[in-house]
């Protein structure tokens, strides 16, 4: 079984069926892409998997390496993250007035223990915990290449760096699966290339699996081992990149007409 297995996920917004019996699977160490025209329901799918929406039907099962499989549908977002699923957002959702370092530190929140008493009295345990936290977060920033922005307010970062910061922050939660929602949106070709390398590096060094939503086809093709395609809420195709690329159903969904391949 894959580290993530979604079966027949269905989600309605009032009268509109935003996600219609979509299934997908991510195996350990895989990079999987979810693509489709705008409005296909991809982000809604993410939101269901990560617990932001909790009125869907279907099952979401996680099977992290070294742990038991469990179903997580309809659980609260923070619980799901604590279990090892981390995500970034389509529209950047950084903590704007906090520094770059602090944004990453937040990611570690669930892995730390200090409470109110710890905050007020700053005992030895708390101080050691904070030291380790600073060390770890700085290392993460170095890995992502953002260490020179350490004390800068997140809102002052250039766009491409903000996107990378979101990834750094998600990384701090120690996930086994990273869900990236359009990580390359708005990036120029150089930045996109850097992003590809970063994701590959993360997969190698952190043993993380990745599920990403993307519109940038070059990134999708060069990065993913498997692609799922959605349109109008339904899953319409899946497979390896070279097959999906040629699939007439997929082409029709994007271009809206039959094209002789």
């Amino acid at each position: 079984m894959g580290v993530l297995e979604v079966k027949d996920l269905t989600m309605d917004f009032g009268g509109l069926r935003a996600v219609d019996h979509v299934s997908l699977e991510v195996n350990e160490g895989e990079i999987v892409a979810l693509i489709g025209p705008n409005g296909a329901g991809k982000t809604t799918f993410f939101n269901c998997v990560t617990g932001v929406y909790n009125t869907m039907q279907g099952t979401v099962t996680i099977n992290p390496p070294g742990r038991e499989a469990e179903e997580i549908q309809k659980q609260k977002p923070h619980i799901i993250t604590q279990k090892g699923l981390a995500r970034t957002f389509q529209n950047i959702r950084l903590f704007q007035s906090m520094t770059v370092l602090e944004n990453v530190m937040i990611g570690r929140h669930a892995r730390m223990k200090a409470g109110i008493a710890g905050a007020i009295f700053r005992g030895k345990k708390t101080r050691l915990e904070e030291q380790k936290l600073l060390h770890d977060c700085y290392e993460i920033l170095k890995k992502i290449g953002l260490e020179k922005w350490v004390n800068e307010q997140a809102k002052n970062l250039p766009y491409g760096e903000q996107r990378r910061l979101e990834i750094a922050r998600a990384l701090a939660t120690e996930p086994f699966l990273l869900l990236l929602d359009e990580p390359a949106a708005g990036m120029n070709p150089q930045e996109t290339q850097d992003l590809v390398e970063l994701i590959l590096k993360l997969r190698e060094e952190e043993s993380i699996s990745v599920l990403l939503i993307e519109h940038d086809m070059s990134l999708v093709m060069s990065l993913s081992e498997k692609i799922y395609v959605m349109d109008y809420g339904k899953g319409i195709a899946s497979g390896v990149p070279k097959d999906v690329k040629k699939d007439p159903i997929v082409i029709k969904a994007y271009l809206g007409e039959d094209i002789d391949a």
Partner: protein
Amino acid sequence: MIKDRLLKSLFVSLWLTVLTFPVMVIRVNTIEDTVTWRWGNLLLILIGSYILSLLWNYALERQERGKKVKTNKLSIKIKEIKATFSQSRPMKTSGIAAALLAIFLFPFLTSFYQMSIMNTALMYVMLGLGLNITIGLGGILNLGYIAFFMVGSYSYALLNQAIGLNFWIALPIGGLVALILGIIVAVPVLRLRGDYLAIVTLAFGEIMRIVVENWSSLTGGPSGIRSIPRPAIPGVDLNLIDTAKLVYFIMIVLAALTILITLRLKDSRIGRALIAMREDEIACQSMGINITRVKVIAFALGAVFAGVAGVVFAANTTFINPASFTLWESVLVLCIVVLGGMGSIPGVIFAALVLKLMPEYLRAFSEYRMLVFGAVLVIMMVFKPGGLIPEKRKHYNFTNKDTAEFEEEGV
């Protein structure tokens, strides 16, 4: 174009003059059956609104333009002065020593009246810092905050009446009662969004006040409770002036504690979680943070400080009634946090002192106080939502091999 601006402001001022004509110029008194015309006001509005409109539009334009560049000569100068002070060790220590000396000597150099004012101001510093945790750090708009203050006061008053509770023991008890109330209030409020949450907290505050006002058998109703014992040192006989000095030092200690706790909180795991929640609840949850718990903490923690301050208030004024704990007081504390800067400790202290001390020295204008508060809220939100002294996050100094903060800028 200057001419356009002048013309635009002329239209605005004419519009406002006409709009405010009935209320400002005509005064109808149906008790005495008179109608007074105050043409002077007409001129006042015409000219006043013209100037204000010019200033307002100018400020708006500057805000649009100057979003990135901040090269105001004055602010650069201030930054330089601040830098020289904080960098040189001897300057810093002598500055702190001077401040401490001033604080210690204050009660011995000033009159009873001035000390009383300062005592009240210090209570509001504590209230401001307390609310700062809920609003400033947590981003939760608690419009019923003064209810916690009231609960602290009444706890001392009632427990003292019932079992002769001593002031010193009442202090932590007041905080505890407020804490419990804070948790109770937080529960229904938890899943509400900003606007609704604000109104519900306002509702709670008002309900509490109305209940206290009407439950005469328990709380003495609108007439309140009298003869609350002042703080005393067992065995020492203190007259009025010395008691005031005692209260002063109590407040200084409490305020210092509040400052210390808030400082520690700001840069801790919990503090960061609060701010993350303020900035973006959904992202915060996605980082594994249990929003519900954090909200309760924001509420309850803020409440404790109000509760403790309430005990001192009751002991200081020796008489409390529901009229001291109205919505206006909540708004005043809100004003303090907004004006000072949400999440900013020096900002809140500064604003509390200004907002409580200034009216005393500007007694002549006391009627206009609330009017000014209302205007301040609007103006601050439009032009300087970060407050007069915006919050500054902690900077960590890393050596190349990383680790270990040893220089922490930003209070």
